């Protein structure tokens, strides 16, 4: 089976349509997107459509649309963007617990019919406790995973049964639930990506997901985990950033230009650490000499900006080889990101992907 490549949807306002943007400017925009003066919370169809068309062109399978209080809502964004694209799929992130499963499935199914079948789901159990409280959710970390399990169990009942749904759990209760709008695609239920590094996240993925989504590590380190997940019939998808240049030195130069000067560093570090996420706690502990996990995998930005800034960098050939190494241990999908997203997706589509396909 061929590797599948997805990309992060850029923040609103991040895509510069008719001029150029430096990697530093792109990174800064993303860092500041959670400040109240940023335009990132306002939907940006023009920039998004521009990016989406380039992503389709580059051979990207889907875009992941993240969920947070700082951003527009992913299902609604997918709907608008899906009207303007033909092939591109959408992985909409959703936090379980913020809606009743019945209404969630109704929205999700409606969306699947409006953008024929081009829709997958990324379930996140929660983020910081503070942000969850703002959404009316007062459960603790592990309980949120238990609830997410029930949430997805109800969703699967709707997707798998034609008739009425009945469910009685600790967190949800549905009696004779009926929905007439089906999930419309060439599969009965969407692909479900479960993210997280914690034990409950892995258990949730195994019981309710189709794919475990986690931050990249070296292929060697990931081997046992991937084998365990694959044995259960699930896929593994890695989240990572890429910097591809003609030489490794050029790529490193770009990467280092993104390091903050020390003052900004301290400030940003505090906002990047989402207190309730094991992935973020692990990320915050990284840095220093340990920042090169391999010749091409760098975590130098992680202590400042969080684990999803883990970066694969090098020449097109090096990147293609690294991706094929992941394939050899059983990883089958990637969700990537770069600075700027637009330039990096173009480079990836032109330089890296053909090498990967050739080897496959």
């Amino acid at each position: 089976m061929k590797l599948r490549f997805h990309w992060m949807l850029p923040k609103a306002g991040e895509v510069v349509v008719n001029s150029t943007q430096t990697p530093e400017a792109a990174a800064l925009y993303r860092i500041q997107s959670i400040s109240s003066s940023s335009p990132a919370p306002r939907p940006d169809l023009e920039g998004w459509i521009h990016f989406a068309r380039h992503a389709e062109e580059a051979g990207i399978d889907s875009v992941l649309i993240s969920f947070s209080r700082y951003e527009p809502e992913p299902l609604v964004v997918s709907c608008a963007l899906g009207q303007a694209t033909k092939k591109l799929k959408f992985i909409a992130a959703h936090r379980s617990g913020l809606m009743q499963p019945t209404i969630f499935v109704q929205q999700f199914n409606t969306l699947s019919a409006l953008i024929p079948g081009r829709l997958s789901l990324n379930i996140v159990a929660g983020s910081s406790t503070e942000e969850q409280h703002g959404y009316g959710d007062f459960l603790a970390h592990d309980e949120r995973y238990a609830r997410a399990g029930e949430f997805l169990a109800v969703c699967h009942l709707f997707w798998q049964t034609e008739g009425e749904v009945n469910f009685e759990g600790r967190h949800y209760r549905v009696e004779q639930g009926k929905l007439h709008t089906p999930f419309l695609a060439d599969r009965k239920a969407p692909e479900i990506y479960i993210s997280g590094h914690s034990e409950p996240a892995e258990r949730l993925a195994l019981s309710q997901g189709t794919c475990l989504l986690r931050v990249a590590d070296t292929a060697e380190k990931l081997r046992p985990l991937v084998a365990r997940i694959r044995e259960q019939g699930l896929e593994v998808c890695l989240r990572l950033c890429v910097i591809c240049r003609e030489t490794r030195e050029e790529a490193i130069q770009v990467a280092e230009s993104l390091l903050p000067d020390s003052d900004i560093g301290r400030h940003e570090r505090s906002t990047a650490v989402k207190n309730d996420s094991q992935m973020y706690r692990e990320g915050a502990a990284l840095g220093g000499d340990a920042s090169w996990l391999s010749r091409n995998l760098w975590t130098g930005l992680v202590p400042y900006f969080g684990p999803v800034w883990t970066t694969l960098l090098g020449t097109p050939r090096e990147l293609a080889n690294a991706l094929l190494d992941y394939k050899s241990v059983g990883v089958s999908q990637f969700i990537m990101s770069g600075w700027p997203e637009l330039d990096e997706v173009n480079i990836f589509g032109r330089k890296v992907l053909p090498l990967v396909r050739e080897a496959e």
Partner: protein
Amino acid sequence: MSLRFHWMFPKGGEVAMKTAQETSRVLTTRSRSPAALPDMEGWVRFGRAAEEIGIESVLLSFSYYEPDTILIACAVGQATTRLKFIVAYRAGLMQPTTFVQQINTLSGLIDGRVALNIVAGSSAAEQRGYGDFLEHDERYARAEEYLTICRCFWRDRGEVNFDGKYCRVEHGQLFTPFIAADRIAPEIYISGHSEQAQRLALAQGTSWLRLIDTPEKLRPLADRFREKGVEVSLRLCVICRSTREEAIKAAQSMLPGEDIGQEERSILSGSESQTLKQALAAADNVGWLNRHLWAGLVPYYGSSAMTLLGSPEELAEIFLNYERIGVTQFIISGWPKLDEMLIFGREVLPLIRKAEGRTAAASG
């Protein structure tokens, strides 16, 4: 101010349906009905026709047998430029923070062309399928809390804190604002005839939405709302033909066959809705509420099938009568949906606008 006219959005597949009978609830609630699926082609045709002839908004109804209203508004909004969307939603099915985030996102994607029709709930059985086990009165109490939180997000734009009986939010923050040229929050229509519905509309709504009745009956109610600065909107059907007699003939041809008619009645009689009970009683007792307002279709098509019928001149005059007692908006349907809307736009609306122009000139 001129009267505002909205139209009921067609169900999936309805734009292609030629008779009222095909759109009956018995048929559209069957699980294989085309009403279960989005119908972008028909909807876009309808939406563009609506904005062309001067219809301000479409109302998208919410139920388990139709696609989700917020996402339909988003998709059809991409293909239209002026038409607004009154999105019906039931309070309590999602956290208010998430709901506001979706509505705000939608507003940013369709230039603020979104309003809300908040419904406290439907039948107890349908609510339980949505995971909601509250009783009728409690659902209204929850809707009150729900809208209080929504309005805090829209008004304050800072942190929202709320600790109620049904909803709790701590340090709630949403960065995506409600985006519209002229408002910081959507218009909110509250429907229902019960005392709780009226109280909710007065406390949290910008308009009370109810079924049409005669102007005499509505006058005291309209006064009550206008005093508090809340508008009154009426839901009705319109059948306009060149004469009243022809309109009556058209209306009678819409009565369903016997089987469907009986099934329809038995569905309707199971409802808890006070609106529907009142409308059914009117249909049984009198049939005609006045010379132009007919309840004959209600037993078969539900309470919103209370029908105003007549010639263009008669209808225009009737709408202006409602304006005189303080009604400001109408949400209309007719069969076939597109044809009746086109007749209204061509024949009735110009007469109303002309008369409003004369009044404005006389008072100006």
